């Protein structure tokens, strides 16, 4: 096995074990031996993809995914300076946040990492995000998708408000809306006019991919 293959395997194993130092070290070593930054991001993407599938099957749980996400971010911090010189082609741009009145960031953070690992450019607006801030950010970054999370029934209707604001500003056709969070269901997503619903972090990535595929299909009109 070549050094590059061994280090790539080590990087994937470190991420899957939630080993931040090991992931950062393997990423650093890969760059030192001359591996392209995309070799590192490819390994990270594969590891997070496998974890997402395991999480979806309930073979692993939030704590496992969370420490893996920490390891992913530790490795990304190493590779990001190199990526600036040879940027990846992004699948699409997503602004993500937890809706106004809600400070529960766990699900949103996992989705953010999974989306980044899958090749999306993700702008994280954080928690307790005002309705207008979602729309302003989406327009500023020319986002393909607004992804919103809520953990509480008392705050989930802010998602409806964001879609309402997109409509009232006349920009609903410029951006897709992906929603998720514990109280959110497919029925609720349909009711408020969201384009996709993510049942968990892995499902949210699949939903974002469906939206991007639809968005970028020939003849799609989103001026």
């Amino acid at each position, binding site marked *: 096995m070549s050094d590059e293959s061994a280090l790539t395997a080590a990087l994937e194993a470190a991420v899957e074990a939630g080993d931040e130092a090991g992931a950062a070290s393997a990423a650093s070593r890969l760059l030192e031996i001359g591996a392209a930054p995309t070799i590192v991001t490819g390994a990270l993407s594969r590891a997070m993809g496998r974890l997402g599938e395991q999480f979806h099957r309930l073979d692993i*749980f*939030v704590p496992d995914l969370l420490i893996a996400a*920490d390891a992913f971010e530790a490795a990304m911090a190493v590779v990001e300076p190199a990526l600036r010189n040879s940027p990846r082609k992004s699948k699409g741009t997503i602004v993500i946040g937890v809706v106004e009145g*809600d400070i529960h960031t766990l699900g949103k953070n996992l989705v953010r990492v999974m989306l980044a690992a899958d090749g999306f450019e993700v702008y994280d607006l954080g928690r307790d995000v005002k309705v207008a801030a979602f729309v302003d950010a989406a327009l500023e970054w020319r986002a393909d998708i607004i992804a919103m999370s809520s953990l509480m*029934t008392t705050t989930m209707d802010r998602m409806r408000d964001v879609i309402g604001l997109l409509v009232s500003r006349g920009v609903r056709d410029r951006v897709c809306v992906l929603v998720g969070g514990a109280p959110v269901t497919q*029925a609720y997503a349909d009711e408020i006019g969201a384009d996709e619903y993510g049942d*968990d972090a892995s499902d949210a990535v699949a939903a974002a991919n469906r939206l991007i595929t639809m968005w970028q299909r020939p003849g799609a009109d989103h001026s």
Partner: protein
Amino acid sequence: MTGLERVRRAIRFEPTDRVPVAPLLGAHAVALAGITYEAASADPTAQTHALLNAVELYRPDAVFTLMDLSAEPEALGAEVTVAADRTRIITRHLSPEALLADDLERVILTARVPAFVDTVRRLRAALGDTVMAGALISGPLTAAANAVGIETIARMLRRQRETLADMLERLTKACMAVARAHLGAGAHGIMLLEPCATSGILGPDDLSSLLLARLQTVAEHIRDRDGIGLLHICGDCRASLPCLADSRFDVLSLDAPVDLMRAREVVGHHIALLGNLDVRHLLPRGTPQSVYGAATLLVRELGSEGGFILSGGCELPPETPTENIRQMFEARVT
């Protein structure tokens, strides 16, 4: 047969004249009475007034205090703020070290927790033994998660397991202190809220090794004081049902993602079930006919052999139409 008798018989799998109905009406009752959540969650007079109004309107077999998962964390020191919609939200978490203190059993009975205890006292005084008076309290894992943040707890599960076990042990004793206070005030039952024990967050192995023994301790503490113990888990907890069946609680309250008929097959007659009409869409936004249909199905499938209490999968949203709630009570007599 009074509501309390009906509930007691149902949880012993004994025949009842009809299936007991006990939705968590707190937030709806408060909205119906024109009281803000902010006021009701701090003022026992206001909360009692709202809940008694709802009892008068719907005639449930059990009435529970308002669900407020910020009450115990606030008492423990977390910062709680009133949101724009007048609900209370936790805006600053504690450091984990704060939950390793020796006086949690005393501290947790401060801030707004006494207002909930006083609400129970007033409910019991007004209702006697006609309706089961129940208190909703945070379980040890959920109190920890809301006090220090769920991400902190999730990382501790993998990186500081011994410290987390110590924290949960202390919070178990603190939760028992809250339960004792409510039972002392006249509560017939305690519903321990453990939404953070849902399968996505806490797998069956973690539940079994880290939380189950502590849940059993709380359940026995309630039973030793002649209280009815109810355990509520939010979300999809199918993977953990075998473990939850051994929790020693009298009743397992399950959320809508769990098929109650399947759950009965898994848990057998170890524990009664409470639930689980969908509170996210069906009850607040469904038609009365659809609510009646779903409630009737549950009553028909689970009601014949006892061990079942019809309810929502969680607390009903404030905006739930009165007519939809009435349909739950219509279905019980079929």
